[in-house]
């Protein structure tokens, strides 16, 4: 049987929701292979994550509880995942295309002698299993076939709904990775940007600002609007490059991909590389003082206006609407 193995992602003892989208992908892939969906949790003292994952219609959760997995290091995770895939007859290994997934999965692919598909948005049968993936900043979608028996896939989670709890629970089994320690790599720190706001990739509403805001202080206008709507905040690479906001906020081809219900692009021109990260949003609102800004070609609602005037007005007026 050709199973599909999902590598779970968690932070601070909490499951990252993007994992649930990877499970949905895995369920679609498993329909094609005729195998089961199993989930692997690598961590230390994260029993809660393993328990939670058992509820989403998977066949089994394997939990490797090891101090070596306390902090994520590709050099330790990859060989464990390779061993697990081999022992559980998984021919497909997948995970979200997060920074962890991107760092980790190619190493797994090398270990399994597998071809790897980055950012899969579709898996289907057409005379054999095929995948679709975007490239060239989303300007091109290719259909690809992996010619190796094993396949590794990073999943573009914005293209998959989160798996839902089924009411059943799958068994959680502890699994021994049989790790060998290495002396050539050390975890030093993870400096989390603590925020009350939802994670960009999970948020239902995203408010993003661009270079037109001119300074980091002016981004308070963006965060104020986001807070009224309970949204996440994002930015263009130009705004990040200019030092207005942290790199973690960057949306686009070389940043994060988001697809919320509602996206505000404020003082953003709409370069193709930015669109690559937000074009999948349900509703796009653009606010730009230039009527010819390309962002208006993809937005559902546009305001040709000075952001410094209309954003505070919008924020004030929304306060009474959302209450």
């Amino acid at each position, binding site marked *: 049987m050709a199973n599909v193995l999902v590598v779970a992602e968690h*932070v601070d003892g909490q499951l990252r929701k993007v994992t649930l989208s990877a499970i949905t992908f895995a369920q679609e892939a498993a329909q094609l292979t005729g195998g089961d969906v199993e989930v692997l949790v690598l961590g230390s003292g994260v029993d809660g994550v393993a328990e939670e994952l058992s509820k989403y219609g998977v066949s089994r959760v394997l939990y490797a509880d090891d101090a070596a997995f306390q902090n994520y290091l*590709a050099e330790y995770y990859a060989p464990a995942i390779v061993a697990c895939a081999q022992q559980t007859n998984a021919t497909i290994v997948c995970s979200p295309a*997060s920074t*962890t997934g*991107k*760092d980790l*999965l*190619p*190493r797994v692919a*090398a*270990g399994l002698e597998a*071809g*790897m598909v*980055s*950012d899969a948005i579709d898996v289907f049968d057409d005379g054999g299993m095929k995948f679709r993936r*975007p*490239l*060239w900043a*989303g*300007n*091109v*979608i*290719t*259909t*690809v*076939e*992996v*010619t*190796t028996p094993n396949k590794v896939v990073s999943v573009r989670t914005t293209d998959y709904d989160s798996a839902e709890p089924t009411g059943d629970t799958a068994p959680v089994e502890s699994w021994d990775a049989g790790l060998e320690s290495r*002396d*050539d*790599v050390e975890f*030093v720190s*993870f*400096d989390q940007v603590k925020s009350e706001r939802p*994670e960009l*990739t999970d948020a239902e509403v995203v408010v993003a600002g661009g270079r037109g805001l001119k300074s980091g202080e002016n981004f308070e206008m963006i965060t104020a609007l986001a807070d009224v*709507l309970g949204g996440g905040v994002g930015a263009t*690479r130009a705004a*990040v490059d200019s030092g207005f906001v942290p*790199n*973690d906020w960057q949306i686009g*081809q*070389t940043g*994060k991909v988001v697809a919320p219900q*509602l996206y505000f692009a404020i003082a953003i021109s709409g370069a*193709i*590389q930015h669109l690559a990260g937000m*074009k999948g949003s349900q*509703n796009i609102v653009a606010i730009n003082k230039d009527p010819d800004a390309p962002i*208006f*070609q993809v*937005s559902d*609602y*546009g*305001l040709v206006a000075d952001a410094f005037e209309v954003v505070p007005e*919008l924020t004030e*007026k929304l306060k009474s*609407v*959302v209450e």
Partner: protein
Amino acid sequence: MKILATVKRVTDPDMKVKIKPDQSGVVTEGVEYKMNSFDEYGVEEAIAIKEEHGGEVVVVSVGPSESTKELRTAMAMGADRAILVETDEDLDSDAVARVLAQIVEREEPDVIVMGKQAVDSDRNQTAQLLASYLDWPQATFAFDVEIGDGWATVGREVDGGTATKRIKLPGIITADLRLNEPRYASLPGIMKAKRKPLDTLTPDELGVDVAPRVEVLKFEAPPEREAGEILDDVDELIDRLKNEANVL
């Protein structure tokens, strides 16, 4: 210290790519090419490491003969010599990694600096695959690199913040956006680069089978999003979001 940096020739990101009518690839006529932007950060970092620790910077590209242009640019920035592994085929990341592994075997660098992602194929795999084939440690998405005592301490851009990792050399680092400001090639640099050594090899000579593990069958344009409406004012926007889009 011997530093290897990789350079991919990619289509100019400011140009819109067009797909061939038979969906077999993208149109290449009239297209401009340049060095992958993350590789510019990588080459800059390699030169900065050499300036601090001494040694040599070798740049490598796998691609068509025209890639000598990007290699000359890297040498004009300050790299010492270049290797082109010439192929007209569009290799997958795995084949590139296996070619590079052979170059590493010959050159025995102390550190390899690569880009995090080639902005044409958007795969973000090659460095991690190469690290795995060499069984070296990796530090991807670097915004800060300190080298000393045979180790690299690397600040990394990750979801939710930043992370710091130490890898013992030899190891692989991939460049992210905030790593540095790539220098421009100076005129004397460009003149000098013309005389710097550039060796050409083929995958065959390296004994690497470049048959793809991921075969591309079809190229298509994504569905277009339709342009919506320009509204009069904030009140109309709120009304539409509430009553038409139902998102408030």
